[in-house]
């Protein structure tokens, strides 16, 4: 016998101070019992008007601000902006700088994915262990960046026309050691999470993004690839020297939370492959950029790169002045979170946390 008890709809505010919303995201959930019938994400708590600031900074000065967009993968934001600026100014970085950029971008992808999978596991109840393991390994990456550029979070390492500091033999050795170390370590994550039955059952079939849905909502990055769309800017519109490396683009089958997790694990393996090849082939030269140049950008340009969260684009309009006329940043988290309301409709609250965690959003990038 089936009885349906009609209860009053309840509005629950989840966030902005909530451990599972990964920053200051505020979700207004309409609940029917445990089931979510509607969801409205409220964003803007971390708004720092970075796009407006760009209109009052020269291109060189703006690079430190891109660090503050996606603070878990600052190198990739540095890279995206510098590539856009270089495209506008018709510059090209020296070959050694291009290889160094690939290496740091991929290292940062690993660090970012580590945090993504571990906080996702934490949302599902694997409270401390995966997070501490990920922090331990992320620390090794961050230490490499610290030696390269002197900061652990806001690097300002990739500059227009090159990078801030050269690779020393010591740092090169540390990177090579890290690659060997981390290749073994991923197996630990597999044992800890990938093969764990609770984790699997808990995340399979949750928050399914179908292929069409992903394309309609412009979901990008690992979340798109988990739905089976083989789209990676590094492969399909190669920038830097990515076309010289041999790597695969992992795709998922169902587009559920589990697939998004497993795509990230596989991407870390691919990143290691890229780093290894780049370290082997890095040419000699002087990659250090001069910062005392005055650029007067004119014209407009759009450049996109593959950040750990997806398709990161910078659109710069210059009118021949030192300051750009307008800068627009297309951030992957912003379009990924747009898919959230449709994604979690009909789930219960604990599964919504799972779907949100698997999208891997960074609020600094959404609000910017």
């Amino acid at each position, binding site marked *: 016998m089936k009885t349906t008890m009609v209860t009053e709809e309840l509005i629950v505010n989840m966030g902005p101070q909530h451990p599972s919303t990964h920053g200051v995201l505020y979700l207004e959930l309409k609940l029917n019992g445990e089931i979510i019938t509607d969801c409205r994400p409220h964003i803007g708590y971390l708004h720092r008007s970075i796009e407006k600031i760009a209109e009052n900074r020269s291109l*060189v000065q703006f690079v430190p601000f891109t660090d503050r967009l996606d603070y878990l993968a600052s190198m990739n934001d540095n890279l995206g902006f510098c590539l856009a600026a270089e495209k506008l100014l018709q510059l090209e970085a020296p070959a050694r700088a291009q290889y160094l950029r690939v290496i740091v971008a991929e290292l940062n992808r690993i660090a970012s994915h580590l945090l993504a999978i571990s906080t996702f596991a934490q949302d599902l109840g694997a409270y401390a262990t995966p997070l501490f393991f990920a922090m331990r390994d992320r620390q090794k990456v961050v230490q490499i960046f610290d030696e390269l550029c002197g900061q652990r979070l*806001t690097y*300002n390492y990739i500059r227009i026309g090159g990078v801030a500091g050269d690779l020393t033999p010591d740092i090169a050795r540390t990177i090579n050691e890290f690659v060997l170390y981390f290749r073994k370590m991923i197996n630990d994550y597999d044992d800890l*999470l990938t*093969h*764990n*039955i609770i984790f699997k059952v808990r995340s399979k079939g949750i928050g399914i993004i179908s292929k069409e849905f992903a394309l309609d909502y412009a979901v990008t990055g690992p979340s798109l690839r988990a739905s089976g769309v083989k789209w990676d800017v590094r492969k399909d519109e190669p920038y830097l020297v990515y076309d010289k490396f041999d790597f695969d683009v992992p795709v998922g089958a169902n587009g559920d939370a589990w697939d998004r997790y497993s795509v990230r694990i596989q991407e870390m393996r691919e990143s290691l492959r890229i780093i290894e090849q780049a370290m082997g082939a890095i040419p000699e030269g002087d990659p250090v950029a001069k910062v005392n140049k005055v650029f007067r950008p004119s014209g407009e340009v759009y450049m996109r790169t593959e950040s750990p969260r997806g398709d990161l684009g910078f659109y710069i309009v210059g009118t021949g002045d030192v300051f750009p006329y307008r800068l627009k940043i297309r951030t992957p988290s912003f379009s990924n979170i747009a898919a959230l309301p449709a994604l979690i409709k009909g789930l219960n609250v604990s599964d919504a946390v799972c779907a949100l965690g698997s999208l891997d959003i960074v609020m600094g990038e959404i609000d910017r």
Partner: protein
Amino acid sequence: MFKLFVDIWQGIVSIFKGFVVTGRSMFRKPVTIQYPLQKAAMTQRFRGMADLRVEKCISCLQCVRICPTAALDLTSVTNPETKKKALESFCFNAELCCFCGLCQDVCPTKAIFLNALYEVAYYKRSDVTAIDLMAPDKYAHVGVLAAGKGKP
């Protein structure tokens, strides 16, 4: 029915594997350090507080112009005979600084640099917003000098 038992068995094995991974870390060397008692060594290129080698500065203002947050401010006087500029004051606002390192990279004489100080604490806000870089003992009582850094 048989599948159920297989599932249960696989579940137990998978959880046991996780325990093995966790258990193994009991025999590893800890990666953490006992922070307030033990200080981590900072790296060679560590970017701490802005500092100045006063005798090297030629008052070219390049650092002031490139600073994205306008944290630096200097005034200079020009000697009417030799046409040489001499520093009069050099003020650093640590509250605005984002430790980007652009000033030390742009300086033609390597006069301004980011030193090895970290863990900097002040009693008064006004002390942070106007640090006189020309005073030799400006950082005498604040912060911890990073052990590993080779910069003077």
